[in-house]
């Protein structure tokens, strides 16, 4: 079984996703960076981020948790908790219809 990514590795993956998707300079992406203010992302960008994180975690992101995330560090913690949930075999959350 593959070893689970640690926080540093998750951070590197998150930086890769953010810099590749939104043409951000990797050195400007810090743990404490806020997604919507510091990195100037918007809610549509967030949808793209969470779809890409799905490939990383192997799980559908929980939209309720996703909506609470404001910083890169919270994004890293989110991925970490999703990987732990996958290890525990927790069922994936439903994909809610847009309302």
């Amino acid at each position, binding site marked *: 079984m593959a070893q689970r990514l640690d926080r540093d590795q998750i951070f590197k993956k998150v930086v890769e996703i953010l810099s590749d998707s939104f043409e951000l300079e990797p050195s400007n992406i810090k743990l404490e960076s806020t997604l919507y203010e510091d990195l100037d992302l918007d*809610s*549509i960008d967030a949808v793209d981020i*969470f*779809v890409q994180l799905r490939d990383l975690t192997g799980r559908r992101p929980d*939209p309720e948790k996703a909506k609470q995330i404001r910083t890169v560090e919270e994004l890293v913690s989110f991925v970490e908790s999703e990987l732990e949930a996958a290890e525990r075999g927790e069922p994936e959350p439903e*994909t809610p219809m*847009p*309302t």
Partner: protein
Amino acid sequence: MSSSSDVLARMPHRGPMLFLDEVLEVSGSKARTRTVLRDDFILAKDGKVSSLVSIELFAQAAAAYMASKTSPTERPTVQGALLGSRSLDTFVDAFDVGDELIAEVEQVFGAGALAQFKCALFRAGQKVAEGNINVVSGSDVVRG
């Protein structure tokens, strides 16, 4: 699932702007639709239709998926808008009038009014386009 005609009636698209002929299947978070490019298709020119029409076929398939989830008596019909795509690959330049196109869409994420669909388009069993679309749903969004 409601009948194909019921689902199409709950979509906001009408007349020549309704590109779907049939909703073939809705299952889980996926939908499959059929379009035949007739000679009076609104985007047809000299017997050809640009393959960029794929993005609208994906959007209408997503609308059909969302319409299928509403109550048959619900009015107004499902409303929303295509926000765009970060990834769209077409493997042919154009389609021919007479082609039958099958769109397959899967909702891969949804939060609030926003959702993303992973999409593919097939002609005679061959994939001719793929990508993803972001959509927003809700009558308030459309009214502004």
